[in-house]
């Protein structure tokens, strides 16, 4: 018996590859990205404090989406990409 696969789909065209540059986690600027749920900031606060034990944290900054339920806006993503070498995302509920 031949059936049609209910999961079948064609891979979307495009899918640009991003060239990753090396990051030095000991010195480079890092964005701490919150998904805007209440506990995400708490988690990121803890990460920043722990990083502070081994490196300077004056170039580790917090950023958050306007809404937990919406994707990050393009201008925020571009801002983070332009100003930081790494980003840590918290999706803590």
């Amino acid at each position: 018996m031949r059936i049609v696969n209910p999961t079948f789909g064609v891979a979307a065209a495009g899918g640009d590859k991003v060239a990753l540059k090396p990051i030095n986690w000991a010195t480079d600027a890092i964005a701490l990205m919150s998904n805007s749920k209440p506990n995400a900031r708490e988690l990121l606060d803890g990460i920043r404090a722990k990083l502070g034990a081994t490196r300077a944290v004056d170039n580790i900054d917090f950023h958050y989406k306007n809404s937990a339920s919406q994707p990050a806006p393009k201008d925020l993503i571009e801002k983070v990409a332009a100003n930081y070498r790494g980003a840590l995302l918290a999706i803590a509920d």
Partner: protein
Amino acid sequence: MKDIAEQEVIDIGDMDVEAFNEFAAEQGWSDGMPLYVPTEEKVAKFVERVRGDNRPFPPVPPRQVVPTLQSLAANAVMAGCKPEYFPVVTAAMRGVLDPDYNLHGTLATTHSCAPMVMISGPARMELGVNCGSNCFGQGWRANATIGRALGLMLLNVAGAKPGEMDRSTQGNPAKFTFCFGENEEENPWTPYHVQRGFAPTDSVVTVMSGEGPHNLNDHGSTTGDGLLTTFAGGMANPGANTIYGKGPMFVIIGPEHAATLKRDGYTIESIREELWKRSRVHISRVSKENLETYTTTGHKPDGDWLTIGRDPSDIHITVAGGPGKHSAFVPSFGGTTVACVRIAT
């Protein structure tokens, strides 16, 4: 040999229905209830129904694959649809793919939201969609299977597998199916699709990522003013996404309640205005921690009150159901929209 996921047509050998259901469950294709077998012949009958609608589908998030009409139809067959339902199912799929519907967010969230599917216009009668008594419930093949087909597409094409990409904490029975028709015949105002700019003769599918219907029982009020007090009390819910998620919500008024409101001079616009004013949540009903979060994330109370939705236009009004003194409130995920799509004929 290609992996099963890469093959549009699969030869599964000789299998009876029970064996197919075991096979489908192993593949992760099932919502837990028995499935029809999506044979090539059955799928072809469904696809034939939408041959005039050649608009391509965009990639479906979160899996980001472009479905074919055949793969969508396979889900409609498995759900138990009749071929004539398929244009409604594809319209519903196009609705959830509206970028403002936020399909990725609504599928991946821990919230319980599921797609609410409402059918308006002549297709309701042509397909036997229940718009009257028990319209949210069991007993009608069109309601049961159109909503189910969309759920299976989101599972199989979008990839919203429970516990994996679908991260809902508790889920919601509406994830099996939540499909009903507007009761236009007993709507004393304008049918919903006409409110949205469609012609009365158009058949339209409306989708919103919502919770299940919350009952609004009012046997005692004999005035429109009294009914709106009850409705607003049911809507003022500190545990819904309406305060910080904002976004749309539906009030689906039962015909008897609608007749009382109409008699007392209420219009769709005045009902929205009144409900928005009266459904505010007093800060005494909100925890200190939540109030602090709302205040620091742009949802500061207006005096001692928090509003639900952004403004009255977030409250969408329609009429459905049969005799009885009940209406329903359907809050949404919040970061979503109410999408309407004309059914291709």
